[in-house]
């Protein structure tokens, strides 16, 4: 909302200093007014200063055509002292004796142009005759500004028209302050803060006594939606341009002048905050209005030519036949005031705020009117003041006479009185404020006080402050005006014990895994939680029932109703798309290898069949209707491919990243085939991470098709993720005694089909070792080595010379030790032979060629 300081000064009954440089110690300078407003909760966004120091009134004394330019005239202009020659190209130059706005040589226009003597096609021009737009006092750039004939030549324009010199302060008005959407409301706050008397807008020509009550002028059918409707019938209106002061004033607050009738309604709107609308009464069927709800589908064309099909929730102002205005939002084209309008029906109404808001939103028509109505305008004094002021100004400016009126009322709101204990103010704020000060502030804001009970004041808020409904609202008013500079920083004390709330274990786990992944050389990325539908669908599956925690069906995607763009059409069901975006972003900008991770939530609707953990507590009813938001911890590594087919290095690195992160929180994952192959990973380069018989994650190389679709085929990408909801609770470590006797090792090299994984070999060896029981007390067993802390160590997965194509050689080291003694070579060799034989027996079942090398 733009505030004109000139306008405010009229309402404050004293001048304000509106031109820079301001005096810092003058409380009435624009800059200090602005500071005051911010402290009152009307936050200032900026100040702009306007002035026209050298623009004067010029009299046209002679006009002759330019000899060499058909569109230019040579004007002899009298500036009050002498006659000056000016060249002018305007087509609306007034005849001899007419007055114009003249910028002489040396004047500086608002856009910074300094005028100098110059030649236009051989004729000297000593200055310029200006338009409204050039002077920044209006939006009419069509021709020059023609001034009233009676004005004295040579007079400074800004001395004749208030508001040319001005400071305009932009404030942002919070939704609780409809009263501050007019200069009057802001002036009321300022008057109290600055200690001046508020001067209400003048009503020089009140509604004449001769105007008669005419109940048939307004039929109030929907009284619940429009508790009060003041209608005025005016005759003999002469529609034309508004006087300059009015056009300047509207321009200063950001409005475009239309015609004198519309301009008056806008002026009063920005003065009092009360929107109003003038109909051409001649064009109203039956010369009257009906306030009713629309029937569904009923058409209307608005002032700005938009055709709407109305809903039965819309309130309309209709004539005897059809809607003529979407109430409180915008007038209709059919009864618009224009040239030739002589009879008016002026509407000054109070509409039910919520319905106006629904209509405005329904058609995306946010207007100055709807903005105020939906915040609730005054239904009493200020409404009547606004009506009287408008009727009076219309008479003054357009000659319109009020001949009849109708004050149609239904059930008006009844502001409830508020009980306020003045001590409560200090108790809530934590500072002492005297009762007198509280009373001064509240009364200054228009609150009627009955202080007969010193501990329970009866406070009646004014009808223009719908936000004052409870005692805390009054306390806020006291706080605003008393100021918070003296508020101490002081802790309060309570007799009650605070309970310690339980920690969310998933949040803790997410933080721990974040640290775990970061401890590798990975960088944490935060991606937006949205993704495109097609990206999300890459991960959808038809498996029913789901076979692993990351399985979901297309209908489980969570979608915003109103996404900002297509690429953000659904909530991410997976972390990969966001990480891939980041990878693509990087690979497009530099050639470095890259490792990123993200720990965050994905969003999925539960299947009706799998009601997960049944929510409990007071929010359970809502919680049952929410999607699930499980956490994922994902890592990705990318680098330019080396040329030869990738050996899965990055996929291995990521698998290791995830295992390491788990190890850091005390969880040890086994690697084996995923419960179900992931379609978005390379079919031959993927692995499941398992804890016990639960798969807790998956890792691998991205599927070549996916890379191709992302234009990343030149790169090798490894990706893996953990599903936090599948992880067991973090274990508390149980101490085990330190092994005191040395063990011994045996190396083993196996020749195997490449599809036999090391995980399968480990499983075979482990189970063979378990089966080779011994009768001895404390026999040697497969046991953890000192380094690494594993019984079987994978040393090499070799493919190449000496190994047939399609096969690999796996080199392993097995560790044996006994519990309480040293082992002998012979007994270990015997055990080892048994273990190898047992394992080979299992492996040859799947690969008959499996053998020891």
């Amino acid at each position, binding site marked *: 909302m733009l505030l004109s300081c000139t306008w405010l000064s009229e309402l404050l009954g004293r001048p304000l200093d509106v031109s820079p440089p301001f005096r810092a110690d003058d409380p009435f300078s624009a800059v200090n007014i602005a500071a005051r407003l911010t*402290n*009152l*909760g009307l*936050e200032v966004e900026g100040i702009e200063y306007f002035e026209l120091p050298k623009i004067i009134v010029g009299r046209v004394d002679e006009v002759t055509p330019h000899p060499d330019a058909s569109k230019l005239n040579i004007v002899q202009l009298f500036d009050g002292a002498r006659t000056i020659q000016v060249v002018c190209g305007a087509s609306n130059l007034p005849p001899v004796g007419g007055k114009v706005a003249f910028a002489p040589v040396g004047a500086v226009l608002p856009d910074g142009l300094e005028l100098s003597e110059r030649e236009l096609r051989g004729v000297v021009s000593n200055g310029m005759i200006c338009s409204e737009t050039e002077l920044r006092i209006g939006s009419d750039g069509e021709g020059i500004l023609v001034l009233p004939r009676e004005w004295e030549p040579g007079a400074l324009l800004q001395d004749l028209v208030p508001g040319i010199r001005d400071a305009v302060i932009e404030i942002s008005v919070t*939704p*609780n302050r409809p009263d501050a959407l007019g200069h009057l409301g802001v002036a009321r706050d300022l008057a109290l803060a600055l200690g001046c008397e508020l001067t209400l807008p003048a009503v020089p020509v009140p509604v004449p006594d001769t105007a008669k009550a005419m109940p048939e002028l307004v039929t109030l059918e929907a009284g619940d939606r429009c508790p009060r409707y003041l209608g005025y019938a005016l005759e003999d209106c002469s529609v034309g341009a508004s006087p300059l002061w009015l056009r300047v004033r509207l321009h200063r607050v950001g409005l475009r002048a239309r015609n004198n009738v519309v301009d008056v309604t806008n002026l009063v709107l920005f003065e009092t905050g009360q929107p109003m609308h003038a109909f051409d009464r001649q064009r109203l069927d039956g010369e009257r209005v009906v306030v009713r709800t629309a029937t569904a589908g009923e058409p209307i064309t608005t002032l700005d030519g938009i055709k709407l099909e109305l809903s039965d929730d819309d309130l309309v102002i209709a004539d005897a036949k059809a809607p003529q205005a979407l109430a409180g939002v915008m007038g209709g084209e059919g009864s618009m005031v224009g040239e030739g309008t002589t009879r008016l029906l002026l509407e000054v109404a109070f509409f039910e705020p919520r*319905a106006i*808001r*629904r209509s405005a939103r329904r058609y995306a028509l946010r207007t100055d009117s709807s903005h105020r109505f939906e915040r609730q305008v005054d239904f009493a004094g200020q409404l009547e003041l606004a009506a009287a002021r408008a009727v009076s100004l219309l008479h003054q400016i357009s000659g319109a006479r009020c001949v009849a009126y109708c004050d149609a009322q239904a059930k008006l709101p009844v502001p409830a009185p508020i009980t306020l204990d003045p001590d409560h103010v200090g108790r*809530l704020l*934590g*500072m002492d404020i005297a009762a007198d000060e509280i009373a001064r502030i509240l009364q200054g804001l228009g609150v009627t006080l009955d202080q007969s009970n010193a501990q329970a004041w009866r406070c009646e808020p004014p009808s223009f402050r719908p936000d004052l409904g409870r005692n*805390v609202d009054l306390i*806020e008013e006291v*706080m605003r005006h008393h100021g*918070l500079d003296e*508020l*101490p*920083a*002081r802790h*309060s004390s*309570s*007799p*009650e*014990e*605070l309970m310690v*709330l339980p*920690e*969310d274990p998933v*949040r803790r786990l997410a933080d721990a895994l974040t640290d775990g*992944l970061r401890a*590798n050389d990975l*960088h*944490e*990325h*935060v*991606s*937006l*939680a*949205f993704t495109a539908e097609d990206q999300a669908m890459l991960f959808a599956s038809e498996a029913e029932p789901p076979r692993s925690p990351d399985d979901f069906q297309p*209908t*489980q995607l969570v979608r*915003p*109703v109103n*996404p*900002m763009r297509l690429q*953000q059409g659904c909530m991410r069901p997976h972390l990969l798309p966001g990480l891939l975006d*980041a*990878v693509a*972003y*990087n690979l497009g900008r*530099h050639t470095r290898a890259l490792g*990123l*991770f993200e720990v965050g939530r994905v969003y999925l*609707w539960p299947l009706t069949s799998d009601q997960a953990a049944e929510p409990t507590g*007071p929010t359970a009813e*809502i919680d049952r*209707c*929410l999607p699930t*938001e499980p956490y994922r911890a994902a890592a990705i590594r990318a680098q330019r491919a080396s040329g030869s087919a990738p050996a899965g290095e990055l996929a291995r690195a990521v698998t290791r990243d995830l295992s390491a992160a788990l190890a850091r929180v005390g969880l040890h994952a086994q690697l084996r085939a995923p419960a179900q192959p992931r379609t978005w990973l390379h079919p031959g380069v993927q692995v499941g991470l398992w804890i016990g018989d639960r798969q807790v994650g998956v890792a691998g190389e991205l599927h070549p098709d996916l890379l191709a679709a992302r234009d990343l085929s030149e790169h090798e990408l490894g990706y893996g993720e953990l599903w936090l909801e599948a992880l067991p609770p973090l274990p508390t470590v149980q101490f085990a005694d330190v092994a005191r006797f040395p063990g011994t090792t045996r190396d083993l090299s196996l020749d195997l089909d490449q599809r036999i994984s090391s995980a399968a070999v480990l499983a075979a060896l482990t189970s063979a070792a378990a089966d080779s029981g011994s009768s001895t007390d404390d026999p040697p067993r497969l046991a953890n080595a000192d380094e690494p802390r594993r019984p079987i160590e994978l040393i090499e997965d070799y493919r190449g010379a000496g190994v047939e194509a399609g096969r690999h050689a796996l080199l392993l080291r097995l560790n044996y030790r006994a519990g309480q003694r040293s082992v002998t070579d012979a007994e270990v060799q015997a055990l080892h032979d048994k273990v190898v034989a047992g394992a080979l027996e299992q492996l040859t079942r799947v690969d008959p060629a499996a053998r020891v090398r």
Partner: protein
Amino acid sequence: MAADATASPQEQLDAALLAFESALPQVSSETQLYDLQVQFLGKNGAVTKLRSLMGKVPPAQRKELGQAFNRVKQAIDEGLAGRKLALAQAARELDLSRHVDLTFVPDPPRPGTLHPITQTRRELEQVFRRLGFDVVDGPHVEAELYSFDKLNIQPDHPARDMQDTFFIARPEHDPREGAPSLVLRPHTSPVQARTMLRYGAPVRIIAPGTTFRRDDDPTHSPMFHQIEGLYVDRNVTMADLKATLYRFVGAFFGEGLAVRFRPSYFPFVEPGAEFDMQCAFCFDGQVSHGCGLCKQSGWIELGGSGMVHPAVLEQCGIDPTVYTGWAFGFGIDRMAMLRHGISHLRHNFEGDLRVLEQFTSP
């Protein structure tokens, strides 16, 4: 070295000693020294073998020969020991003469990093934990009821426009007639409502988390992060809020920075105020002189705050005639950008390695 059979035992001993003494300086390692020792004093050593001559000399000469024999042996032992010491010293000196340039080492591996938003969130959590707050979060997809209605933001009220909100559609497979309307939470305030509903009063929490609004421009991202604080108890005042914010600013940005309030409006508090802190980036211990970050004002706007609206307490099952409370909230992303001097919001969510790798942290 063959013993000269014609020489007397004495002469043979002398010759052996001479041979030893001429060989000794040639020895340059412990193994050679050992070989020399074996050559003279070993089981078949040159000197050891001469011991057998003892029986071949007349008894009268035996004593003298024995003494000579011992002298030679002792001389050899001493020679060996001396040479051994010299060798060790030479080896030590050689070792000490090594010179390695330890200013020339391979670059350490680049450490992994935490996102600046994570770092800032964690530090905020730590500070508030020290001030006695519990940390709570809630769902991102949240009921409109908890996001607005319970927070005194009524349907069809313009206060709903203070944030442009994403709404969430029910899934096709489970439309559920009459199910609550859902949104992406536009602030973390629903966590306050949930916590009050579940635990009642007194309660003191912070709720840091991810939030969403339909804004996308150079200074707004549709996803961002917020932290809110809530304290509900008996006798809680606005002065207490100021004291808490003051302590927070001191712990997070540095001691001595002032906090001030400016009246404002947030539907869930009444009275409501924005709070600013004295600019920490141009603070000389007394005064903030103005800088680019505070737009020369000496103050940095942090966020919104106020006394919890009694209607909110009522909606969340707390009796406002017994309890009062305060709440505050501010953006984590902006706090992170301020702390690290991050120039542009987009750096937060693009995942540029060259940006992320800068944010090393303890």
